[in-house]
C-alpha cells in the first residue's frame, strides 16, 4: 500500500513538466537487440525507467495443432509483468489488463508481419515488463517489433509506440507513471510510419475532439522519432540516445 500523497502539480510555472521535460519531449530511450541467446530474436527497450524485454520464437510448429492456420502463420503474443516490476508486488497470474494488452499489442503487429510467408506455423512473441514506469504497452510494441526484426521475420514496416497524455490541461508526449496516474487522459498509440498506418489506438480518459487531434499529431511525431531510432538500433545492434537529439 503506497502512501497517497496529494495530487502533485504536473506542469510547472515555466511550462515544463514536473519531470523537467518539454511537452513534446521523449524520455531517454535505450534499445538493444539480440540480448537473448535462445530466442530467435530479442530486444530490450527502455523508455526512461520503463524496461521491457521481448523475445520472439518462430516461425515454428505451433505448440497446439488446432491453433494453426493453413494459409498464414499465427501470431501468439503475451504481455506479462514481472512480480517486481510494479510498486506493489504483482501477482504472477495473468490479470484482465494483461489479457487485454496481449491482444491489442498482437493486433498492433498483425498489419506489418508478412505472415502469409509461413503457413501453418506460429510466431511467438513473449514480452516481459521488468520495470514499469508508464508507457509499458507502447514500449512493448517497440520492443516486439525489434525482436521480430532481429528474428528475421519479414515485416512491411517497423511499428513504434508511444503514449500521449493530458496533464494539468496540457497535451504532453510519452507520459510516465505519475503523469498517467494524476493526468486527465492517457492515449497509447502505435503506428507504422512508412505505411501511414495506425495499428494501436486507445484512450483512457476524456478529450475534446480538438484535444484528440492534437494528441494524435503529437503521438505520431514521437513515433516517427522512435522509428528512426529503431532502424538505427537494427544497424548498430544497440542504441542509447535521447532519440530526439
Amino acid at each position: 500500500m503506497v502512501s497517497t500523497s496529494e495530487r502533485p502539480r504536473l506542469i510547472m510555472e515555466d511550462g515544463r513538466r514536473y519531470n523537467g521535460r518539454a511537452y513534446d519531449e521523449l524520455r531517454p530511450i535505450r534499445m538493444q537487440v539480440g540480448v537473448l541467446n535462445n530466442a530467435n530474436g530479442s530486444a530490450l527497450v527502455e523508455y526512461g525507467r520503463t524496461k521491457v524485454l521481448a523475445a520472439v520464437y518462430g516461425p515454428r510448429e505451433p505448440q497446439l495443432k488446432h491453433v494453426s492456420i493453413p494459409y498464414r502463420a499465427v501470431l501468439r503474443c503475451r504481455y506479462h509483468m514481472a512480480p517486481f516490476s510494479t510498486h506493489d508486488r504483482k501477482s504472477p497470474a495473468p490479470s484482465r489488463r494483461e489479457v487485454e494488452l496481449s491482444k491489442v499489442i498482437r493486433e498492433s503487429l498483425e498489419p506489418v508481419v508478412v505472415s502469409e510467408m509461413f503457413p501453418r506455423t506460429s510466431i511467438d512473441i513473449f514480452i516481459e515488463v521488468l520495470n514499469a514506469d508508464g508507457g509499458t504497452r507502447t514500449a512493448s510494441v517497440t520492443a516486439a517489433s525489434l525482436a521480430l526484426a532481429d528474428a528475421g521475420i519479414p515485416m512491411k514496416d517497423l511499428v513504434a509506440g508511444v503514449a500521449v497524455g493530458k496533464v494539468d490541461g496540457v497535451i504532453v508526449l510519452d507520459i510516465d507513471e505519475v503523469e498517467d496516474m494524476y493526468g486527465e487522459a492517457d492515449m497509447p498509440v502505435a503506428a507504422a510510419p512508412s505505411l501511414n498506418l495506425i495499428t494501436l489506438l486507445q484512450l483512457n480518459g476524456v478529450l475534446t475532439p480538438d484535444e484528440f487531434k492534437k494528441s494524435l499529431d503529437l503521438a505520431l511525431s514521437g513515433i516517427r522519432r522512435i522509428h528512426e531510432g529503431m532502424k538505427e538500433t537494427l544497424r548498430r545492434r544497440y542504441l542509447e540516445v535521447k532519440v530526439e537529439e
Partner: protein
Amino acid sequence: MSVTPSSPDYILPKLKAETLASLVKKGVRLSGRALDEFRDFSVKVGYIPNADGSAFVKLGNTQVVAGVKLEVGTPYPDTPNEGTLVVSAEFVPTASPVFEPGPPDENAIELARVIDRSLREIRAIDLSKLVLVPGKKVWVVWIDIYVLDHDGNLVDASAIAVLAALLTTKIPKVVVSPEGGITVKKGEYEGELGLSRRVITVTIGKLGDVLLVDPDLEEESVLDTKIVVAVSDDGRISGIQKSGMGALTYEEVLKAMDLALRKGGELIELVSSATLKQLKEGS
C-alpha cells in the same frame, strides 16, 4: 496469450463477401442500411427483478442483458471515500456456435474493459456519493453484461444496455448500526443512482477505404478492422479502442471520430428517451 483467431466467429460465404464488399464501395450495405445507420434496437428495462437496475437490449439480432447490482463492500485503500465499480462481461454459449463455457476470453475481457473505461474517467457514476461509512464501507457497483445472442457489434449493444440499466438503477435502503454494521433492506430503495454523464459507444468498421457504423456479424467477418469510440452527452470523447487485426490511416481515424461523435449524440438521446418512456409507463 493472445493468438491470431483460427476459427472466426462467423464465416461469410465467399460470393456473399464479394457482393458485400462491392456494394459497400457504393455506399450500400447488404441489409440496405446506410453506412452511418444503426440497426433498429429495442430496450426493456427492469428485465431482471433481482438486479437493482437492468436492461435487455436487442440491436438487430444481437441480444444483450445488463444487470447492475449494488453490494456493500470496502473501498480501495487509495480512494477511501469512493464507492467502487466493477464491469464484467460474459459471452455465454447460448449466443454463438463458437462460444464455449469457461472464463471470459480476451474478447469478453476487452469488451468489459472498454465499457468500464468509457464510464470511469469521465465519472459517469459519481462514486463519491456511494460511501456508507467513510474509509470502511462503500457501495460496490457491479455491472454485469451478458451476451445472449451474437449478431455483431457486441460492444455498442452492451453500451446501450449498460446506459439503460444505469439510468434505472436504484440504491438499496440500508440501516447502519452504531457499531458500523450494515444491513441491506431487501427490496427497498432509497433513491436513484443517477448519472453525472451519459456515455455511449459507437463502433465503426473499416472495409477497404469505407467506414460504416454498427457492423453486423456478416460485416464483421470481412472488416479490415474496427474502432470503438466512447462519446459523452457533452460531446467529448471518453474512450477509444482500435480493435481487430488491421490498421487505419490518420485520415480514417479523424473521420471515424467525427462520425462517432455525431452518431453517439443521437444514440444517447434515443436510449435515454426509450428508457424514460418505459420508466413512466412501468412501475
